[in-house]
């Protein structure tokens, strides 16, 4: 173990050099570790999201088809009478609604674990006031072709609030009373947002009145059975023309149907499947029961869209690991080779004293191994910060860009059509954004933690680098006779 003693003496005596190589190695290790952390965190986040999502299939009107027909009718109307189309908003379109009878037939198919109806109606507050925000106060509803949704309150009908996407993702939370359950079917029980409740001094047990928006307006008396709180971040999402989410009240889907004057249909149904592998078979069977104006969207498609930022982070992290790994290997190896070449005289002395090449290599290796251990500790501490910072940066960037894309796609959607997630506030753009936001939250909590595995991977890489460098650096020296090494310094 003589070589270890020499290694220790060397590192202690040449402390400046030791510190320098430790710094270089730490710096490289920090970058590699940050890559490994982000990579593993991204994989973990993807997996956990996959597990928690479950597989659902949403049945709703095929919006693309509806828009296509809307555009067709618009262009034809403008060509026939250009004066009338100039001042009217885009032509109102009616989305076909899903007949409950059809929905129940589909629910009777194999592999359905449960289902949730969503229905939506627009009403005006009567005897209380809707929450106004600067963005929604003057623009009002229907900036984008809201046909019947000119009311200031949106009644969002659901089977149960517990299964509603905003509540599921914990963006919305019941703070007092209870949520809407199956037992609220055919009742006027509602759950209102806390801001609406506070501003109108409403409590669980209070009653409110709403009026329908059509000409012969009917009045409904609703009973508040619960109050929910929407995360403020969500309310800031709405652009002009979107109502404040506080004005969404949840009820049983039957109430929304009654207000709309159509109790036999709903806007969308979300089916939860017993087994994600049965998704294709289910979709195939369900398609036979619906007309082409409806679409079936599975959560795995939505999920793929939501996971896009994660995938991007993952592939980016992969590239970082590789680039930094390769560049780091080359730099470290070159520095090590240079340092060893500088020590050729010392190596010559050891050879002259009869030390074996193997033990000389072991000495150089143990020196670098000690440096590596210290660097790993430094990298472990610093890499956490770097990984967190870089990870956050990446995720927020990626999420923002994806959000923009999806909002763009969702725009132009009008009326009371909830998006794929169903049951959200009336504007489809907003629904989409809410869904996006939920996933954004999930991704933002990306846990960039150092695992023993990442440290082991890093250590293994470091060991490989120094092993290669030591052999590469010393081999040319070993080829020479000691006399030669010692005579030309």
């Amino acid at each position, binding site marked *: 173990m*003589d070589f270890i*003693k*020499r290694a220790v*003496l*060397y590192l202690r*005596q*040449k402390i400046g050099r030791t510190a320098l190589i430790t710094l270089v190695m730490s710096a490289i290790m920090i970058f590699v570790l940050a890559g490994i952390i982000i990579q593993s965190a991204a994989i973990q986040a993807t997996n956990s999201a996959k597990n928690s999502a479950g597989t659902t299939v949403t049945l709703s009107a095929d919006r693309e088809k509806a828009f296509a027909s809307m555009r067709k009718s618009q262009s034809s109307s403008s060509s026939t009478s250009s004066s009338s189309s100039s001042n009217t908003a885009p032509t109102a379109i009616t989305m076909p609604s899903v007949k409950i009878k059809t929905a129940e037939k589909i629910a009777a198919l194999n592999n359905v674990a449960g289902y949730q109806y969503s229905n939506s109606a627009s009403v005006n507050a009567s005897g209380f006031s809707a929450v106004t925000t600067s963005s929604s106060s003057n623009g009002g509803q229907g900036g984008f072709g809201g046909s019947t949704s000119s009311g200031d309150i949106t009644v969002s009908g659901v089977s149960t609030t517990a299964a509603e996407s905003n509540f599921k993702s914990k963006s919305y939370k019941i703070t007092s009373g209870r949520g809407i359950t199956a037992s609220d079917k055919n009742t006027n029980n509602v759950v209102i947002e806390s801001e609406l409740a506070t501003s109108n001094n409403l409590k669980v047990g209070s009653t409110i009145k709403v009026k329908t928006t059509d000409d012969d307006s009917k009045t409904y008396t609703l009973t508040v059975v619960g109050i929910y709180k929407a995360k403020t971040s969500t309310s800031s999402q709405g652009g002009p023309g979107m109502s404040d989410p506080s004005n969404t009240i949840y009820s049983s889907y039957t109430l929304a149907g009654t207000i709309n004057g159509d109790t036999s249909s709903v806007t969308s149904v979300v089916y939860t499947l017993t087994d994600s592998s049965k998704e294709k078979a289910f979709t195939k069977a369900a398609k036979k029961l619906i007309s082409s104006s409806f679409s079936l969207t599975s959560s795995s498609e939505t999920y793929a869209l939501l996971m896009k930022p994660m995938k991007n982070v993952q592939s980016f992290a992969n590239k970082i690991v590789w680039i930094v790994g390769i560049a780091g290997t080359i730099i470290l190896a070159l520095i090590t080779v240079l340092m060893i070449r500088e020590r050729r*005289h*010392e190596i*010559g*002395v*050891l*050879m*002259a*004293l*009869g*030390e*074996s*090449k193997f033990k000389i290599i072991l000495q150089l290796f143990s020196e670098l191994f000690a440096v590596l251990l210290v660097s790993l500790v430094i990298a472990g501490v610093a890499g956490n910060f770097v990984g967190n910072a870089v990870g956050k940066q990446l995720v927020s960037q990626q999420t923002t860009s994806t959000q923009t894309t999806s909002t763009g796609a969702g725009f132009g959607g009008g009326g009371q059509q909830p998006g794929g997630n169903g049951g959200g506030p009336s504007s489809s753009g907003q629904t989409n954004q809410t869904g996006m936001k939920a996933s954004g939250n999930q991704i933002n909590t990306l846990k960039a933690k150092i695992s023993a595995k990442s440290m082991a991977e890093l250590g293994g890489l470091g060991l490989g680098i120094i092993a290669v460098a030591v052999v590469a650096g010393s081999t040319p020296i070993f080829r020479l*006779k*000691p*006399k*030669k090494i*010692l005579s030309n310094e």
Partner: protein
Amino acid sequence: MTLAIKDLTHQYNAQEKPLYEHINMSFEPKMLYSIVGQSGSGKTTLLSFLAGLDTPSEGIITLDGEDITKYGLTKYRNQKVAIIFQSYNLLNYMTAAQNVASALSMTKSKHAGDKEYIYNTLEKLGINHTLADKNVQQLSGGQQQRVAIARALAVDANIVIADEPTGNLDEENTQEVIKIFQELAHEIGKTVILVTHEPNVAQAADVQISLKNRTFTIVSE
């Protein structure tokens, strides 16, 4: 244990004349040999062959009749020979004592790890305990030379080869070192070969060899 040069010819450069041609010589235990010769005559080069640090163009070095390259030069340097270099060649990240200590453990000497032995050996060459614990770069040239000698004395090897071991020493220290080399040969029974410029050092040897005109001449025996 006889060390012998067999028909040695060497030239560094094919264009130049050989440094020496067909030299034969043998070195016996319990004897102190001195080699003298002009600067550039090839003394250091010859010692490097004897020490197994290099191999000649032609001819071989044998130990008890066996070619040392067959024995293995690394093993030969480790077990059979101790070298004192013209330029000391100490390990500069160690103290004097650590230099001696690591030579002992490297050669698996029976004295490896024996601190008292290490400090005593250094003491014999006028390196006291305080100096022994100093990094060798903080020692004077003469002190470093004495540490290099101590390192060679301390190990178990039976052949001691020294290149100008008194080059940086004052008269007093030179006499001391001559006495030590004589003891090594006559009392401990090692084969001691030293190269020197100094006539009084050369004369202290049992056999004086002159390297001249590309060959060895035994001056006195």
